[in-house]
C-alpha cells in the first residue's frame, strides 16, 4: 500500500515541521497582531479584495422550479461573461430555494442576511414571497433587487431598500387591455387565472383598463396555484362562448393549461390572450408545441426585440434554447447589479449612493434601456405585444407592437 505510507510520511513530516516552527509561530503572531492593529487603515483595500456576496432567493422546487432554474442560469451567464468579477472585485453568488412558499422564502432570506452576510440580495419569482420579504429586508436594511412583480411593491409597499429591475403586473395587464381594445373593440372577454397575488393583479388591471375603454367583461375564473386538471375550467369557459379569453398561468400551470386548451379543442375557436408568462418562450412554449399558436400576449421580455439580441445570442451559445422571462430577468438583474457595483467603484453597500447612481442614468439591459423611477425604485420598461407564430424548430413570440417606456402609476395610484 504505497499510498498509505505516503500519507503517514507526509503526516509525520508535517508534525515535525509544526514542532520546529513553534517559535516562528510566536513571531508570526506578533506580526499578525501588528497587522491587525494596522488593519483599519487598510480597510478600503481589504474591502476590494473581499468578494462581493450576492444572495439570490428563487424557486428551485415547487410549481416555479423551471422558472427559478432559468433565473439562476441567466444570472450565472452574466457572471461568467463578466469573469466572475464586477468592477474588478470577485463576486460570489449564493442561491437559496424558496419553494414558491412565502414562509420558506422569508426563512431563506433571513439565512442569507444573518448567516451568509450577503452584501446584496436579489431574486424572487412568486409575488407572495416578494411581499412577505418586503418587511424582512426593510427591517434588516438590506439592499434588495426584488424581481417579484406585485404592484404593491411599486405602490403602497414601496421600500427605500428595494429596487425593482423588472416589470410590475400592471404594466402587462393594462397593456393587454389596451391592445385588445385597439384590435378588437367591443369584444366580450372572460378571464381565467391562478388565484394568488400575481393572478389577481394581472386580471384586476386588465379588467379595470378594459372597462375604462368601455369593453365588456364576462365571468372571471380562478384556480389554485399548482392545478393539475383544468377540465372543469375549460368546460365552463366553452359554455360562456366569449369572443376572447384573457389568461394568466405561470410555470407548470401554464403548460398544463395550454395542453388541455388544445385537448378540449378550444384552440382556434376562442381568441386566446394573456400575460407573456403564460406563453414563456423558454419554460412554456417548447413544452406545448402548437397549442398556443396565434395567441397574443404582452410582455417586457422578448426573444425577438432588438434590445435582447446580444443576450439571446449568448444564451443560445451557452447551449440552451431561446431565453424566456426568467433567464432574461436573472441576466438583466445581473446587469443592474454590475452597473451598481461599477458606478460606486466596487462597493455598492453604501446604499444611498448606489441608489442615486442608478437613478442618475439608465442601465442598458437585456430588457432594453432601463431607467429607474426615483419615486419607488421601479424600472421603466418597454412592453411588447407578441403573437405566437410558427418558426423553424418550434413556435416563437413575435413582436407585433411595442408600448415604449411604460411607467407604473406609482405610490399615488
Amino acid at each position, binding site marked *: 500500500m504505497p499510498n498509505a505510507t505516503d500519507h503517514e510520511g507526509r503526516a509525520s513530516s508535517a508534525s515535525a515541521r509544526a514542532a520546529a516552527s513553534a517559535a516562528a509561530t510566536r513571531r508570526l503572531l506578533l506580526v499578525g497582531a501588528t497587522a491587525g492593529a494596522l488593519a483599519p487603515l487598510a480597510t478600503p483595500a481589504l474591502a476590494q479584495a473581499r468578494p462581493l456576496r450576492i444572495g439570490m432567493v428563487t424557486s428551485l422546487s415547487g410549481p416555479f422550479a423551471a422558472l427559478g432554474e432559468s433565473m439562476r442560469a441567466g444570472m450565472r451567464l452574466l457572471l461568467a461573461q463578466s469573469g466572475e468579477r464586477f468592477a474588478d472585485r470577485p463576486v460570489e453568488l*449564493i442561491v437559496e*430555494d424558496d419553494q414558491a*412558499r412565502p414562509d420558506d422564502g*422569508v426563512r431563506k432570506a*433571513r*439565512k442569507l442576511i444573518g*448567516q451568509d452576510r450577503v452584501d446584496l440580495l436579489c431574486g424572487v419569482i412568486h*409575488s407572495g414571497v416578494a411581499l*412577505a420579504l418586503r*418587511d424582512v429586508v426593510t427591517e434588516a436594511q438590506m439592499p434588495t433587487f426584488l424581481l417579484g412583480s406585485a404592484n404593491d411593491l411599486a405602490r403602497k409597499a414601496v421600500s427605500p431598500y428595494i429596487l425593482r429591475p423588472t416589470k410590475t403586473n400592471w404594466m402587462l395587464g393594462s397593456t393587454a387591455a389596451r391592445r385588445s381594445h385597439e384590435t378588437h373593440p367591443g369584444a366580450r372577454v372572460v378571464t381565467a387565472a391562478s388565484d394568488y397575488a400575481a393572478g389577481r393583479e394581472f386580471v384586476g388591471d386588465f379588467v379595470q383598463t378594459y372597462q375604462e375603454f368601455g369593453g365588456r367583461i364576462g365571468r372571471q375564473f380562478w384556480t389554485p396555484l399548482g392545478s393539475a386538471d383544468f377540465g372543469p375550467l375549460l368546460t365552463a369557459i366553452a359554455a360562456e362562448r366569449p369572443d376572447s379569453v384573457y389568461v394568466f398561468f405561470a410555470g407548470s400551470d401554464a403548460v398544463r393549461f395550454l395542453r388541455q386548451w388544445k385537448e378540449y379543442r378550444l384552440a382556434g375557436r376562442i381568441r386566446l390572450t394573456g400575460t407573456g408568462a403564460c406563453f414563456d418562450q423558454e419554460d412554456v412554449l417548447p413544452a406545448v408545441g402548437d397549442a398556443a399558436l396565434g395567441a397574443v400576449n404582452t410582455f417586457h421580455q422578448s426573444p425577438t426585440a432588438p434590445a435582447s439580441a446580444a443576450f439571446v445570442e449568448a444564451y443560445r451559445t451557452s447551449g440552451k434554447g431561446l431565453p424566456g422571462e426568467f433567464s432574461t430577468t436573472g441576466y438583466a438583474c445581473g446587469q443592474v447589479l454590475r452597473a451598481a457595483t461599477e458606478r460606486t467603484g466596487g462597493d455598492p453597500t453604501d446604499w444611498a449612493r448606489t441608489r442615486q447612481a442608478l437613478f442618475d442614468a439608465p442601465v442598458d439591459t437585456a430588457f432594453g434601456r432601463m431607467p429607474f423611477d426615483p419615486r419607488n425604485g421601479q424600472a421603466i420598461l418597454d412592453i411588447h405585444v407578441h403573437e405566437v407564430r410558427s418558426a423553424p424548430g418550434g413556435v416563437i413570440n413575435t413582436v407585433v407592437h411595442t408600448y415604449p417606456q411604460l411607467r407604473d402609476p406609482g405610490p399615488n395610484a
Partner: protein
Amino acid sequence: MKRNIAMVALPAAAAAAAALLADDFVLRFLAEILLFGIAVMSLDILIGFGGLMSLGHAALFGGAAYAAAIAARQWGGDVALVLGSGIATGMVLAALMGVVVLRSGHLFLLILTLLMGQMVWEVAFHWREVTGGADGLRGLPALSLGPWTLSTARALFLLAALLAAVAFVVGRSFVAAPIGRALVGTREEPIRMAALGYSLFAVRFRALVLAGALAGAAGALFPFVNLYVGPQSVHWTQSAAMVIMLVIGGIGSLWGAFIGSAVYLGIQTYLSAYTDRWQLCVGLVFVLTVLLLPNGIASGLRILRDRLRRRGA
C-alpha cells in the same frame, strides 16, 4: 432528585447559552424549531398516548397563527392577547374537530382530520378580506409585554423557550395524571375501559382540546418569527410534516418532538443550500429512523445513555 435538577438545568443552560452566543438568524431559527416542537409534542399526546392518528394538526397550529396575526394587526402585539387568541382558537378548533371525528377511529379518523384540516385551509385560502388569501398576512406589529417591546430575535427566542418549557411541563403532567393514563387505556384496551365506566369520547376529547391549546399557543407566536403567516401553515402537507417530525423524533416521548422538528427544519434550511433534493434527504432519514430506531431518535438516545451508564457502573 439529582436527575430532576439535571433535567431542568440542562435545557435552561442550553437556552441561556444560545441566547447569549447565537446570532439573530440562528435565534429565530431556534425559535421556529421550538414552536414547531411544541406543536409536534401536542400531536404526540394524540398519536403517542391516545393512538389518535391525526392529519389535521396544522389546522389547529395554523388556525391559531391566523387568529393571533389578525388580533395583533387589529389591537397590537401584546403577548397576552396574542397567546390568548391563539390558545382560544386552537381549543375551539380542536373541540369542533373532536365533535366530528372522535366517534370514529383508525383510517376514518385519519381521513376525517385531513378533511377538517382542509376545510380550515379553504377558509384561509379563499377569505381574502380577512386572511389575505394566497398572499397571507404581513405587516404585523412587534410583540410587546406591558411597556416592553419584544421585537428582537433574542426576545422572541426566550419567549419561545419559556413557552416550550411550560408546554413540556403541561404535557408531561397531563400524560402522568389519571386522565393521561386513561388516555393510554383507551388506546390499549378500549372495550375494557368502556366497561370500567370511562367515556372513551370524553377522555379523547379532553386530550384533543389540550393538544389544541398547546398547538394554539405555539401557533400564536409563529407569525412573529417571520412577520408573516400564509395558507401553507394550515395546509395538510404541514400536518404531514409534523407527523414526519414526530416519527423522526420519537413517538411517545414528548421531548423527541423537539429533536424531530430540529432535524426536519435543519435539513430543510441547511441542506437545501447545497441540493434542490432536500426532500429526498428527509425521506431517507425517515426511512432509516423507521428501520433502525422505530421509536425515533429519542429512543436511540435513551438506549445510548443506558449503555453508557452500564459501562460506567
